């Protein structure tokens, strides 16, 4: 018997789908039967081809949308484009993000604002508008990709960690606000994950992170995509307001 596709007939939005975890999410969700609205910052042929190829392979719709998450009016126009598709939106994954590591004195306020714009304000605005669409159907699942940096307090991560912590507060609060309309809101805190984002990580830090994991390896994008899929699917229909660490136990390790 063919395996059941976990997201069959659902439509989900994924931000930052050009690279890394976002790209893997689109792949995993499509394989599992979802129609995906695949957001990226700017239009390009490679991303269009990626969407078209997946759509054909998995017999789903993959609709690319393009807007810069630093720009509120671009975000709103993007949402208008999504609304114009007249699709019932079942899920939103606020995945796109930027990282930044610098000590307090080396963090400019402009840099801090940009991090907050992309990592917190954009997910906030998207949740505001997309949850209104979910409200009409009295169902939905929002998944926020935070970070293990939101839970620890390592040097150099005051800006990035704060933006990701803000996302966790938003997650819990929205879960409480939207729950009675059957909209669930959860967050994932990935540990170090093999994507472009960690390209600049120093070798010794990478090694320490790997060693600190109970599993002695870093995460791969599919570890995060699979967890997001579970949270979007009806398998998790009684899970809301939760923060799920997908970090090989690193945050537990640091408590010892």
């Amino acid at each position: 018997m063919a395996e059941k596709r976990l997201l069959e007939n659902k439509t989900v939005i994924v931000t930052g789908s050009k690279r890394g975890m976002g790209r893997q999410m689109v792949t995993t969700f499509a394989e599992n039967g979802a129609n995906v609205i695949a957001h990226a910052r700017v239009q390009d042929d490679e991303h269009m081809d990626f969407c078209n190829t997946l759509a054909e392979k998995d017999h789903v719709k993959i609709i690319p949308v393009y807007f810069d998450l630093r720009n509120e009016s671009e975000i709103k126009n993007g949402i208008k484009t999504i609304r114009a598709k007249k699709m019932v939106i079942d899920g939103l994954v606020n995945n796109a993000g930027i990282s930044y590591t610098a000590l307090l004195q080396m963090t400019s306020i402009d840099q801090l604002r940009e991090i907050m714009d992309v990592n917190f304000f954009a997910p906030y605005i998207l949740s505001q508008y997309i949850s209104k669409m979910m409200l009409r159907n009295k169902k939905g699942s929002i998944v926020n990709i935070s970070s293990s940096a939101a839970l620890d307090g390592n040097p150099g991560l005051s800006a990035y960690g704060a933006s990701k912590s803000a996302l966790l507060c938003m997650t819990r609060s929205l879960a409480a606000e939207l729950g009675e309309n059957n909209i669930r809101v959860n967050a994932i805190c990935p540990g170090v994950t093999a994507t472009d984002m960690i390209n600049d990580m120093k070798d010794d830090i990478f090694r320490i992170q790997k060693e600190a994991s109970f599993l002695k390896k870093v995460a791969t994008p599919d570890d995060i995509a699979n967890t997001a899929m579970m949270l979007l699917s009806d398998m998790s229909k009684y899970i809301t307001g939760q923060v799920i660490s997908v970090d090989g136990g690193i945050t537990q390790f640091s408590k010892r």
Partner: protein
Amino acid sequence: MTNLELYKKSFCETFEIQEDALKGLVYQGIPSWDSVGHMNLVATLEEAFDIMMDTDDVIDLSSYEKGIEILKDHYDIGF
């Protein structure tokens, strides 16, 4: 159905009230127009008029009459 009828229907169905209760109705003036009811009203209006309300307008929608003004001025809905 005229836009005014559609507007009234959105209020009546969301808050489970009769049309004669609409005039002068304000946010939090009845138990069903609480913050949750407000979000449901906005979702209903967006659906009914096929618009996407700006968050500033969602915040400003403080009464039955104010809603008409917002829809007229910001979304070109004729009443």
